[in-house]
């Protein structure tokens, strides 16, 4: 008996990151989507992961201080 047959949700959990990273093979994508179509439990967790990635990226982004921008421009090597 394969892992997927023993515990399809655990197997789906294993496939979540590679699925969202688009690095699964075509056959694996079909397998993951077949399970997600019938499993609301996993589907919620996939949706959460997607939202989490977007959210993390949004909240950790700090604008560069304006003073730093000026300091960088001042590092340019003057033309002779």
């Amino acid at each position: 008996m394969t892992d997927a047959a023993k515990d399809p949700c655990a197997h789906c959990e294993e496939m979540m990151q590679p699925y969202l990273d688009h690095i699964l093979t075509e056959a694996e994508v079909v397998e993951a989507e077949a399970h997600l179509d019938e499993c609301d439990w996993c589907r919620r967790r996939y949706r959460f992961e997607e939202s989490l990635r977007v959210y993390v990226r949004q909240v950790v982004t700090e604008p560069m201080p304006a003073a730093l921008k000026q300091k960088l421009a001042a590092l340019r090597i003057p033309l002779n």
Partner: protein
Amino acid sequence: MAEDATRIATEARDRVRFEEEALALADQVYRVARHLSNSREDAEELVQETYARAFRSWRSYTPGTNLRAWLLRILTNLNIDRGRRSQRAPQTQALEANDYYLYDKLAADSGGGQPADEERVVERLSQDDIVSALATVPHDFRDVIVLVDIGDFSYQDAAQILDIPIGTVMSRLHRGRRILKRELADSVLEDVT
């Protein structure tokens, strides 16, 4: 003589173009630097050193290649050279949980019922929760998360910047995200108690 003048003019034009292209990427470079280094001050200093070095060695950049990755390669090398990487959380102690762990904790925290909207569940995590959880992820894993998930670099670029195989980028990314989620779950539990 005229040839010399032309050569000098061409070089000056190429250099100005390089500097302008590099400066246009400064926001993106800073975004990555901010989470590769330990503090805002370190990040600012690191970005300045990176640009100073980039402007000095602009001739070693091949036009048409990925300038953002080239700048980040300088930055990560400087960061390692100067020993600015966070030393906390040695890798052997990094705790990772399964991929569903964080969602399960947040769902349990909401009273055990199924939360209606997954997009809203993430908002239970504050900006502080996320920034401090990210800072506790050991640097080998954090570097990859910061480059790929925050800096939007490809696996290939991240592999070149960090000088590690692409398979290592992928495995560190997957483990690093699990460590991050574990840290987030722990911080949410602490908030409750």
